[in-house]
């Protein structure tokens, strides 16, 4: 590599580093201050402690919030993952290309309409049909926001799926079901699991729709919201770090599964 190459990569490299710093600065701050003794989150730092974690996890609302978040994440993973994967599969096997594009665009709408509007529309809808606020309504909202992302990732995986191998299987004597069981399923399974993990991550992080629909129940984000509104409380950093680790694991897992499949 010549000098010119090095120079031509210096500025772009700096730019990338700056952008990444901008994106990760908030995260670093949160994780860092979840371990420091100063309650005011300012410099200089005096000492390190795990006290905030102890305090955060002794919050009486924590068990309920964790349980509800887990239930919602599971429902989103199974419901959003499976329905979204099936939808994406249906899309790529659709014969009419115009319908295929139109349906794909339409399925992206919940990702573009402001979450606030979706949250309110659902709240009004549930009120109208007489469903009391709670986990059920929140679960519907969580599946709804996960579907566009699941469909988009599955769609791009399936676009490169070679459908002639299904014909090859049929040609060798496999029924429609046998071809699905022996060929399609083993090949797309990692992608489906990856999409489900993504749906779980989106659900764990969902706040706005939850807030308008869950009523008096709590999830981890609504709990964090409550703590934030009360002023600066370092135990927020502890819960946030915990959530961050959880989300990162899910997303990295999802990516690895998708990559292995491509």
């Amino acid at each position, binding site marked *: 590599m010549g000098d010119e190459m090095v120079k031509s990569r210096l500025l772009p490299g700096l730019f990338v580093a700056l952008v990444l710093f901008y*994106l990760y600065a908030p995260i670093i*701050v*949160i994780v860092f201050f979840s371990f420091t003794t100063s309650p005011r989150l300012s410099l200089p730092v005096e000492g390190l402690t795990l006290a905030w974690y102890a305090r955060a996890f002794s919050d009486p609302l924590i068990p309920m919030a964790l349980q509800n978040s887990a239930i919602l994440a599971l429902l989103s993973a199974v419901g959003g993952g499976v329905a979204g994967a*099936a939808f994406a599969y249906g899309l790529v096997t659709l*014969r009419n290309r115009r319908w295929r594009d139109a349906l794909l665009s339409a399925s992206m709408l919940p990702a573009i309409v402001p979450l606030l509007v979706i949250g309110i529309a*659902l709240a009004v809808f549930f009120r109208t049909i007489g469903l009391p606020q709670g986990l059920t309504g929140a679960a519907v909202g969580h*599946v*709804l926001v996960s579907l566009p992302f699941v469909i988009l990732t599955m769609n791009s995986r399936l676009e490169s799926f070679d459908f002639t191998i299904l014909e090859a299987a049929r040609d060798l004597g496999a029924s429609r079901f046998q071809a699905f069981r022996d060929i399609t399923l083993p090949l797309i399974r990692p992608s489906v699991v990856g999409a489900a993990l993504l749906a779980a991550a989106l659900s764990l992080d969902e706040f706005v729709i939850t807030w308008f629909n869950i009523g008096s129940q709590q999830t981890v984000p609504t709990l964090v919201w409550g703590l934030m509104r009360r002023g600066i409380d370092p135990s927020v950093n502890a819960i946030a770090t915990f959530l961050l680790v959880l989300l990162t694991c899910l997303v990295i897992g999802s990516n690895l599964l998708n990559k292995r499949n491509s």
Partner: protein
Amino acid sequence: MSNSSNAMTDRAPGGGIAPLLPAGLFYFLFFGVPMLSLLVISLWRAQGFVLIPDFTFANYQKVIESDLYRGVLLRTIGVGLGAAAIVVPVAFTLAYIMRFVFERRGQLILQLVMLSLFSGYLVRIYAWRTILGKQGLLNSALQWLGLIEEPLEFLIYSQFSVVVTLVGLLLPMAVLPLYSAMLNVPRDHIEAARDLGANRFHLLRTILVPMVMPGVRTAFAFAFLLAAGDYVTPTLVGGTQSVMIGNMIADQFRGTGTNWPLGAAMAFIVVGVSLLLYVAITQVVRWVTRW
């Protein structure tokens, strides 16, 4: 003709519509119906807590004519445009670098950028409050270093803090469509244009931007819509002077002075204005990038 040739090259054995049904029904029932209901309600009237079915545009009129609501709406559009005006060029540059400078590391950078998206929506907004606050990280660091005496007030509870926070939230959403659009631009095209004597500016305006136009559009739509529709950011890091339409909509549905029809009308005005702006900006970009 194009239809029949599609049928000829069809790759997939018709899977039928069965796989589309579960998600399709879900969308219809829990997205289509609620959104339409909200649209209908925006045409009703509210008397106290009672909703009266009607067909009136009075709520829309009220939002447009009231100085308060109009001011908030315009500020929201301003913040949305401001955020998009920063996010799209930065994301474009980043995507360009990922695609054409660090080719092989592009995917890795993308993974890093996207990972930040999934690191807690509330948490990141909260973190910016921690960083920008009056006694926050930045101010205390600057004071500690002796660069300033008094904390900088404009850093927090201002339009500045709202835009800084939104840019961080929206950047990953804009990088994704731009990067995938640039992956579809063959290096040959860029080299051919340079070979024909296009300078960098020409290259950008007449080759690259038109070719990645769908990506630019999606990135802009994401950035503007999500910025204008965000509710948590102005609530947590915005001050009284930076209330956005999202806060006012939420107020119509939660708390004391609720008015569903008015809130619904505000919601659809935001969506409608966003769509109009989206079309307008697309046209402008198309016009600028013409020969």
